[in-house]
């Protein structure tokens, strides 16, 4: 006999068990209709696997388990399925749920079934599945699927198997009678469980108010091969609670949130054990159970072996129902049971008792008074909660505090309500609070999901809008590009300019021909006297039309020609450059001749210069021919290639400018060196020639690349022709100016040497004239362009002005350097100052170059 411990609290309500233990277990009559609920257990409801009209046999499966946490249901008797649908079920809500209704045929015809000859031959898993298939769930009250309880993970090592036979609730005697009459079957059931669990210790916990059952069990275990302890525990409610019984028998508390298996214990109700035995030994599914029918509302309180699905009315009838003496019908015990008001509610697997109570037996409670915090509830709470605090919090809906006071550990045993002197329905408060908290949590979960879904939708819509916008933008760009392409195509006729011209000429000649023909016809008409005036008029009109056409064609031809010559400008420039180079060469040669005649010093120098100039001239010529060829090619064939060329052109332009500056500096140095008769004259001269070669190639390259760009359209078509003109003019002006300066410098040099050269003077005069002319034409062109109010024009003008500024700065630099040379030659004291000013000018020059560069790059970006 094991040691008995104790649990906190507990109460001693009047037992009232004797009424129903006077008679042995009777068999309840077979009702006409069985209503078998599909959910009689905790977990997922099973699913009907029969149809209306099907004939079912006793023990036949009619509902399949859904998932692991579920058990099947079986027909309790043979008959015909008459309905599958909502029917009242035993539930505190009194609400209906799905039931399978079977009209019994009275045959009680079993489906073929047989027990397991040797259950030890089966593996644990097979045995557990077998138990599950027989529809067995906990019969103590909650209906926990037994298979789930037996299916333990590897981390659970079970030391103790506890059979719960305490049956602590007043009135109920179903387990008591079952033990009295079927003790050996229960022991046989324990045998099966022990085979599965292999516990080291088996305890049957039974309250000491059931001496007959204890005796029966003790007799039965005599022949058992396992060591089973029948431990009688003091009668105290709620010792039959699983956790309380475990504490009573082992003094171990099941940890909060855990299951008994966590502390090495499995607890099974005695009724469940009996059902397991029936299933194993006879192959019977769980289709009946013992139900106590008691209370003052029945004549013969008694226990009945009842088929699952039997309506309460049939049971009560069998026990002698006194309807007029019954004020409440309770399913379960008086402490935890719930009231019902529908007699057609059927017995389920967990229905252990029906109490028909008279008003004297269970008077309606007095109205609740205020809680005086007497603390009685705390003293009896088996879970050691603070029921009165929970009550305050539940009442004022301070659910967080209620939870902190372990509301969810409440087992709703009703001990607190039982002792409450103020009649406060404490358990109902807790039940309400629990459901309210659960509902709140569920609402919270649902609203969280709703929020996520809403945000996801918003994000998706936002993304869609953005995608649409980008697509639209892309489409607009595409369209703009296509438009531009079209314009380009329109502007740059696919035909060769010459062919185009040819075409236009042909058109003109055709029109001319037409006009002549018409004129001849008209003349013939006029000569024929019989012709009507109208015909003459018509002929006149036709003639005029034809003349108009001719005029148009001629105009087209004329207007085409300037467009045609646009690419030629650069070639012209190159031509000019080439001519210039050859002029220079000639000049140099002349100078050489002069020098040779006068046998002056520096002949060698001049010779080298001439050689260099010769080279320059040839390269310029080469560039010219190159450019002219290339220009033709680009103009006629590939308009798209102009785009990348724009960038190149600008770079080249800058390169040209830099090269030019370098060249000028080198020239200046050279001239200075010449003047001073320095030793490194040859080197300097070489570098000058190199630079000038570089410059000319750079210029050539620039011109080649910029030529097609300048013909490229820029939105508006009309200024496209003016721009290259302007630039050419400007360049020409600049070149002329440079030449002029060079000539001036030469003149100065000569004058320093006191050797006036008339030819040189004449040259200067000519150059001056040229400079003026080009400048004038340039300005004129510029004015004409700036008069057109166009952003493009403004930019071009700005660029032009920047370029001009650069040029001016350059010339200033040159002049300053010349002045410096002069000063140095004269040993003037202002040399230092002049050097500083030259430096300043050179920074200015750099700034001007930079500005130009920036402007160009900004245009690039656009």
């Amino acid at each position, binding site marked *: 006999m094991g040691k008995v411990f104790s649990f906190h609290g507990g109460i001693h309500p009047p037992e009232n068990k004797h009424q129903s233990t006077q008679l042995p277990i009777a068999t309840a009559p077979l009702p006409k209709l069985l209503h078998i609920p599909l*959910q009689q257990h905790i977990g997922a409801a099973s699913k009907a696997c029969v149809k209306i009209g099907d004939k079912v046999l006793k023990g036949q499966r009619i509902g399949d388990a859904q998932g692991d946490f579920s058990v099947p249901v079986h027909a309790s008797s043979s008959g015909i399925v008459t309905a599958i649908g909502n029917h009242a079920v035993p539930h505190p809500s009194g609400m209906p749920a799905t039931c399978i209704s079977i009209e019994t045929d009275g045959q009680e015809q079993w489906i073929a079934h047989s027990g397991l000859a040797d259950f030890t031959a089966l593996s644990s898993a097979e045995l557990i599945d077998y138990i599950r298939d027989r529809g067995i769930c906990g019969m103590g009250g909650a209906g926990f699927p037994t298979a789930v309880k037996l299916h333990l993970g590897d981390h659970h090592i079970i030391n103790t198997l506890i059979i719960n036979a305490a049956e602590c609730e007043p009135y109920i005697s179903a387990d008591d009678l079952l033990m009295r009459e079927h003790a050996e079957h229960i022991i046989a059931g324990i045998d099966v469980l022990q085979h599965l669990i292999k516990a080291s210790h088996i305890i049957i916990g039974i309250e000491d108010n059931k001496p007959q059952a204890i005796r029966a069990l003790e007799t039965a275990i005599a022949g058992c091969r396992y060591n089973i302890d029948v431990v009688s525990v003091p009668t105290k409610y709620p010792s039959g609670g699983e956790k309380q019984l475990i504490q009573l028998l082992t003094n171990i508390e099941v940890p909060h949130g855990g299951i008994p298996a966590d502390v090495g214990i499995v607890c099974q109700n005695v009724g469940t054990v009996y059902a397991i035995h029936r299933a194993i030994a006879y192959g019977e599914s769980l289709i009946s159970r013992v139900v106590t029918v008691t209370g003052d509302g029945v004549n013969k309180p008694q226990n009945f072996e009842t088929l699952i699905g039997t309506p309460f009315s049939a049971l009560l009838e069998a026990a002698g129902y006194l309807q007029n003496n019954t004020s409440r019908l309770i399913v379960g015990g008086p402490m935890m049971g719930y009231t019902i008001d529908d007699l057609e509610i059927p017995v389920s697997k967990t229905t252990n008792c029906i109490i028909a109570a008279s008003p004297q037996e269970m008077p309606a409670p007095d109205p*609740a008074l205020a809680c005086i915090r007497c603390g009685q509830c705390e003293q009896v709470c088996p879970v050691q909660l603070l029921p009165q605090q929970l009550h305050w919090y539940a009442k004022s809906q301070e659910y967080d505090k209620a939870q902190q006071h372990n509301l969810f550990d409440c087992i709703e045993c009703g001990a607190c309500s039982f002792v409450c002197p103020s009649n406060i*329905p404490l358990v*109902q408060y807790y039940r309400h609070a629990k459901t309210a908290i659960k509902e709140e949590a569920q*609402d919270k979960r649902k*609203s*969280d999901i709703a929020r996520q*879904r*809403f945000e996801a939708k918003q994000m998706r819509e936002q993304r869609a809008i953005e995608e649409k916008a980008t697509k639209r933008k892309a489409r607009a760009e595409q369209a703009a590009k296509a438009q531009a392409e079209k314009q380009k195509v329109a502007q740059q006729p696919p035909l060769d300019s010459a062919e185009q011209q040819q075409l236009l000429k042909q058109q003109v000649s055709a029109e001319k021909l037409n006009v002549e023909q018409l004129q001849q016809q008209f003349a013939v008409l006029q000569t024929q006297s019989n012709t009507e005036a109208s015909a003459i008029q018509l002929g006149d009109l036709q003639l005029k039309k034809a003349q108009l056409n001719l005029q148009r064609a001629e105009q087209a031809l004329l207007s085409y020609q300037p467009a045609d010559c646009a690419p030629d400008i650069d070639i012209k420039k190159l031509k000019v450059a080439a001519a210039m180079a050859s002029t220079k060469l000639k000049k140099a040669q002349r100078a050489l001749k002069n020098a040779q005649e006068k046998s002056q010093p520096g002949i060698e120098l001049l010779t080298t210069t001439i050689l260099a100039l010769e080279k320059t001239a040839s390269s310029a010529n080469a560039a010219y021919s190159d450019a002219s060829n290339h220009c033709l090619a680009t103009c006629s064939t590939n308009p798209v290639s102009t785009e990348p060329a724009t960038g190149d052109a600008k770079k080249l332009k800058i390169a040209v400018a830099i090269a030019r500056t370098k060249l000028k500096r080198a020239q200046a140095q050279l001239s200075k060196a010449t003047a001073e008769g320095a030793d490194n004259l040859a080197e300097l001269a070489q570098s000058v020639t190199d630079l000038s070669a570089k410059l000319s190639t750079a210029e050539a390259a620039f011109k080649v690349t910029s030529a097609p760009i300048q013909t490229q359209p820029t939105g508006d078509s009309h200024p496209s022709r003016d721009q290259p003109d302007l630039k050419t003019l400007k360049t020409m002006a600049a070149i002329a100016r440079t030449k002029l300066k060079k000539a001036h410098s030469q003149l100065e040099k000569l004058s320093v040497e006191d050797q006036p050269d008339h030819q040189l003077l004449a040259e200067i005069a000519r150059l001056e004239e040229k400079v003026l002319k080009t400048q004038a034409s340039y300005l004129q062109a510029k004015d004409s362009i700036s008069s057109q109010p166009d952003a493009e024009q403004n930019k071009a003008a700005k660029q032009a002005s920047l370029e001009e500024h650069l040029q001016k700065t350059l010339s200033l630099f040159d002049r300053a350097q010349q002045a410096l040379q002069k000063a140095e030659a004269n040993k003037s004291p202002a040399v230092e100052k002049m050097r500083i000013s030259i430096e300043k000018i050179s920074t200015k020059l750099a700034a001007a170059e930079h500005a130009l560069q920036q402007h160009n790059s900004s245009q690039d970006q656009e």
Partner: protein
Amino acid sequence: MISIVMSVLVLLGLAVLFGLILGFSSIKFHVAGNPIVDQIDGILPQTQCGQCGHPGCRPYAESIANGEAINKCPPGGQATIEALADLLDVEVLELDGEHADIPIKTVAYIREDECIGCTKCIQACPVDAILGAAKQMHTVIIDECTGCDLCVAPCPVDCIDMLPIASNITNWKWQAPADPQQVFQQIIATDKRPEVELQS
């Protein structure tokens, strides 16, 4: 004189000290984001119904954080107002205007025989709880439906019903015990026990 100077200095020192502590803690315990909006948003029922005049619950939460009245959420009802009042420490207000009745939780059902598959309700649903495709019958995912009502108006054939969530065994909840005050109304001075309410 010395004492005045001393006290001024002491106060100054204290001011500096506490300033430093405050400054330090404002950096050290800096809370990123605007938690109050999140908290308000957590209380709102997330039906996204727009009955408050905002396009969704979060905008209303932001607006409440900026001082808008807390009583514009009919789906949340008085419970939400009380929770908001508690959170923001403001007065509990009555639910705004026309929605003064207790909210009954509903979900949308599409009468599927009548649905013409126009997808208008799908576009209207703020939580994507309606399934369907053009010219195909639509249906509501009941578990996801917040009962916001927004799908009812766009339906050209009026085939969407807002039905209250049915009470059944699984979502049934225990009633709170009757308010003692109400029971006391029935007690008369003759000390007779009141008739206990019959719930049928």
